[in-house]
């Protein structure tokens, strides 16, 4: 008999654990599920590749605003456009939150320039993959990061489809994620445009409400259908981004990944997240059941013995 009691006690404990786990999970899934379309007042930037001349003023402005180290080559050195590492053009790292790269497009007289920085997704993969909640999407539209709670696991870097977050690998005692924060602390939260936008002499970068930027982009495509590819990159990519692009060349010819999903990265993780409460609730009963079945002969023997004892 003793065993049955302990089994019952175990089941009770298991039930309590399951209830606790499901409540925990419910609170999380209500946050994760649904389709968040972004804050209505969120700001955005429209980058027009046809207007950019590759002057790198935005890079210089970012460097100054964010207090980043002085680069090896000055910002008016255009030989950086020829830099190739691992077969790839320049990318963001712990010393630069934005870079401009040059692309020679067949059939075009001039190269096209593309500015890279955090796109500030509506439903950011870095944020949803972070297990210490180090990322925040602010109502103003910026994706910001709190280095105080970061553990340095770098899952956000794996999850970001644009390869944006970078890690300060050079530090053992104060490493952190380094990425563009839309100049949130110094400008965006006061309603000001980020430093790079302000520095652009060509008006290649337009700052405004994200919804207005989509309108502006459509307008430009409509006015010059021969000039632009009929697509705003970032309107739907990975569920929409605050920074969006217009281009006169196909997007995959100017360094964009056109294979990224058209829905938030989180959606591909939901299959797994949804089995978690099921395993937590079904497994205990199922496997205790298996145990009872597998040991039924022993149990039957015990009952027989007990019956004999009662008789005698």
């Amino acid at each position, binding site marked *: 008999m003793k065993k049955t009691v302990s089994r019952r006690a175990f089941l009770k404990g298991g039930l309590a654990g399951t209830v606790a786990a499901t409540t925990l999970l419910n609170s999380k899934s209500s946050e994760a599920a649904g389709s968040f379309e972004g804050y209505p007042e969120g700001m955005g930037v429209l980058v027009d590749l046809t207007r950019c001349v590759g002057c790198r003023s935005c890079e210089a402005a970012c460097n100054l605003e964010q207090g980043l180290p002085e680069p090896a080559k000055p910002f008016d050195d255009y030989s950086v456009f020829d830099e190739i590492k691992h077969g790839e053009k320049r990318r963001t790292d712990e010393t630069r939150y934005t870079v401009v790269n040059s692309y020679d497009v067949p059939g075009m007289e001039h190269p096209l320039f593309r500015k890279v920085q955090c796109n500030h997704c509506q439903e950011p993969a870095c944020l949803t993959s972070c297990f210490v909640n*180090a990322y925040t999407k602010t109502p103003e539209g910026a994706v910001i990061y709190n280095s105080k709670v970061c553990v340095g696991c770098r899952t956000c870097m794996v999850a970001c489809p644009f390869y944006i977050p970078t*890690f300060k690998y050079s530090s053992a005692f104060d490493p952190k994620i380094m990425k563009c924060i839309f100049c949130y602390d110094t400008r965006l939260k006061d309603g000001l445009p980020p430093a790079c936008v302000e520095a652009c002499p060509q008006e290649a970068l337009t700052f405004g409400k994200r919804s207005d930027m989509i309108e502006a982009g459509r307008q430009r495509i409509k006015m010059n259908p021969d000039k632009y590819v009929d697509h705003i990159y970032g309107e739907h990519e990975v569920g929409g981004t605050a920074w969006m692009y217009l281009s006169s060349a196909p997007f995959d010819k100017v360094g964009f990944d056109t294979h990224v999903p058209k829905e938030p990265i989180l959606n591909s993780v939901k299959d797994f997240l949804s089995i*978690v409460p099921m395993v937590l609730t079904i497994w205990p009963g199922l496997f205790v059941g298996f145990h009872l079945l597998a040991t039924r002969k022993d149990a039957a023997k015990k009952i027989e013995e007990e019956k004999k004892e009662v008789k005698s």
Partner: protein
Amino acid sequence: MKIFSKQRPEIPIADHVRPDGTAWSLKEKLFLGLTPGEYMQQFFRNPVNWLMIAVFAVGVPLLLQRYIYGLGAVTHGSNDYPWGLFLGFGLFGMVPLSASGFMLGTTVELFGRKDFKPIERLALLNGLLGYFFAVLFLEVDLGMPWRLPYPMFVSLGPAAVLFLVAWHVATYLSVQVAEVLPAFFEWIGWLKGKRAIRKYVLALTVAGIILSTLHQGALGALFTYAPSKLHPLWLSVNFQWIHFFCSSIFAGLSMVIVASTLINRFASWRCDDNFKNNLDYITIGLGKGCSYALITYLVIKIVAVAHDQEWAYLLTGWGSYFILEMVLAVIIPMFLFAIGCRNKQVGMIRFAALLAVLGIVWNRLNTALFCFNWQIYQEVPHWKEVWITFTIFALYFLTYRFIVYRLPIVYTWKGEK
């Protein structure tokens, strides 16, 4: 040890008292009943220990370098490949190899297959150490290793897959400590503790199944965060978690076969007759389990290719690499296990287990490293990163051996139980 154990009947220690009735002290138990001088003598006679010394002589300074100058000093510090060997091998590779604990726990305690009892403790220990060292690898890789408890207590992000991994690995590690403690309690002679744990064995076992299903799966699900980075043949958004879970079954069982083979061969003085005489029979049983798990795994891998319509990828170079992995790491071990079980050829099963262990590590490295970022360049780890990985693995080996030599893992304690 082999030489000493032949000369003296009282060692290896398997009881609280000597044959003459005097008790062994804890120090003597630690030194395996040898004097410190004799212990050193046998330690330096073993060529494996010299290899370990060589690994540590370079590895320890490299580890210091990592903790003083940062990860960038010992790895390429890549922003494109945030996860390297420490996680690719240490976490994603070690965790499936450690599924043995919950597999044998389930077999013996839950399904009541007492015939597998002689290997249960080895499987539990293999699981515990694998997880413990996966966490150690994580501590090498994390940017801020001192913040390990943050996801638990300081700042919670419960919607993230890694949150599940962290919680489940932490709780499962405690479950496994509880499962291995009885062996320790026998060895130090504290039977109260053993009896206390005995009551909760079924609860611990079921907890082990739940936690293992979820975190083995969660390790796979981590890669669903990178649907545009990982090669489609190695990523199935819908089935990734079950691929990882299913492959951990044969990985864990194969690892026990490999470990028990090595122990039986190189530390036979420590094994008792109960272990030695049953090992072949048990190996065949485990091999049978492996071949079932492998055929299931093969089928669900093919289902994933069909489900995502990825047949065309099979004709590319990446496709050939994928087929190579399937043949060497899945199909060949699967047949070797099946033939070995059918003809009772234990040697063949052991070879198949070795293939399966290497195969699963290869699969995890492919997923985390080689087939990641397949559209850009391939990362080759820095030699220092490789060496540190070997160093931590050597530490794992030494700890494993230290415990097997002492605690009643592959032998039955003769004193009170």
